[in-house]
């Protein structure tokens, strides 16, 4: 079963009702986050309710798109659909709003990557419906 008949393709997000506003904003290259007005804090990934209060009163707010690299790894064994990109960098970026996102690190060589470096969002077209975020150094 591990042999694949067809070449796998890169997974494309399928929005659900909670996440639809995130992907709608992404089409305009806006990175939006859920904001919890009760605690004045953000959360990511999008959920139906606040992880802090359990209340479904979250608001969408546009984020700065800036942050710092929290950690990273250079991937030498591809995930399905990424065979042609090996090796590729994936990082955890901690946004200025106080949430973390998994992201490809682009426009940077592996040897230049440093934990703590400033990053900014860029966008990659995955399908007519999906613009996906990546991060590059904010030099």
């Amino acid at each position, binding site marked *: 079963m591990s042999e694949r008949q067809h070449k796998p393709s890169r997974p494309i997000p399928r929005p659900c009702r909670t996440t639809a506003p995130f992907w709608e904003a992404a089409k305009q290259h806006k990175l939006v986050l859920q904001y919890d007005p009760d605690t004045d804090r953000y959360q990511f990934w999008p959920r139906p309710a606040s992880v*802090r209060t359990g209340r479904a009163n979250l608001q969408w707010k546009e984020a700065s798109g800036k942050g710092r690299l929290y*950690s990273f790894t250079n991937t030498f*064994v591809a995930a399905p659909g990424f065979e042609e990109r090996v090796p590729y960098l994936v990082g955890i970026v901690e946004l200025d709003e106080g949430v973390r996102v998994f992201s490809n690190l682009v426009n940077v060589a592996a040897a230049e990557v440093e934990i703590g470096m400033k990053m900014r969002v860029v966008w990659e077209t*995955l399908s007519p419906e999906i613009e996906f975020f990546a991060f590059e150094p904010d030099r």
Partner: protein
Amino acid sequence: MKNFLKSKDSAIVAYGELKNERRSGWTAYELASQVMSQLLEKTSLRPCDIDGLALTIPLSECSNPFWSNFVADYLGITPRWLQASDLGGISALANIARAAAAIQVGLCEMVMVIGADAPSTQHRANYGGYRSEFWEPTGLQGPPGMFGFLMNRYITKYKLSFEALGKLAVAQRNGAIMNPNAYEKNRVPITVADYLNARQVSSPLRLLDSVMYCDGGNGVIVTTTERARRMGARKIVHPTAYAEITNFNGAQMTPDITETGFSVIGPEIWQKSDLAIGDIRMFQPYDDFLIAEMLQLEQIGFCGRGEGSEFLLNTDISPAGKLPINTGGGQISAGQPGLAGGGLNLVEAVRQMFGEAGERQIKDPANAMVTGIGVIPYGRNWGSSAILILES
């Protein structure tokens, strides 16, 4: 702190384990049945004597929402208490605790705890949710990627000696060589240099830091100590303390990913147990990646934060040593039978305590600490952690 296992009323009376194989062609149903046959033969029980069944949901059959019901049918068991745990690598330990609790409240008396999985033959997991939407499109390889993140972050905070991890890799490989149930291709020696020179999978994680999926299975029988004596069981071990935590730091968006659930349940287990850390005769920690064992050593209290490398370099961790670790090779060298992997570390502890570990047998195996790790979440540490103490 309340500890329902302290009285030694619960007993493990038998263990079973299959040899790990790659692409065996077996299904998890068949493997579970093979484990059962071993358990029944060792105890002279019949399927009709088993009134409780606790299972781990496997990668290879997780598309069946009635997995545990089907297994009962395969085995010819009519359980009055049935448990299917989706706790990944802590499921085996969690099922022992749940079985002991179910027995104590009178739901059942003779429980088979089985893990069986065949992910190298067929892998049917599909996680959905946030993972398909926000994780998989980045190409982040699940466990190796996350542990690459974790290692890089550990290195920014603490001193990490790759020689220390290499020593652990070599010690476990020596265990696999002495373990007939280990994946056969891994039963060859390695050196610290082999570890250091192994190709990177997800930097700085190397191939020899990592487990490899196999097909396999394992299990134990849990009953009351009174029933165990009545049935004439000659060898018994008692689960005497257990602690578990899931979704550690779950409401935090920016926790330190080097801090694990063991930072909570490590201190807790010493409150629950009569044993002190110096009393532990062997440590059989869940080992998907070597760095995970180092974090456990630190956060359970065998050494301080950031002292794992020094501890490993200065401690004899062989079966003859002060703290034997993963004496059968662990999952990294013996192979990871999918989500049944947590049972491999457990069964090795029981085998050692029964005095049946052959040339890797430790002296005075009066107790063991076994751990579990399960599930990789988004941007935090691992999801589930568990610790079980066994005593004779």
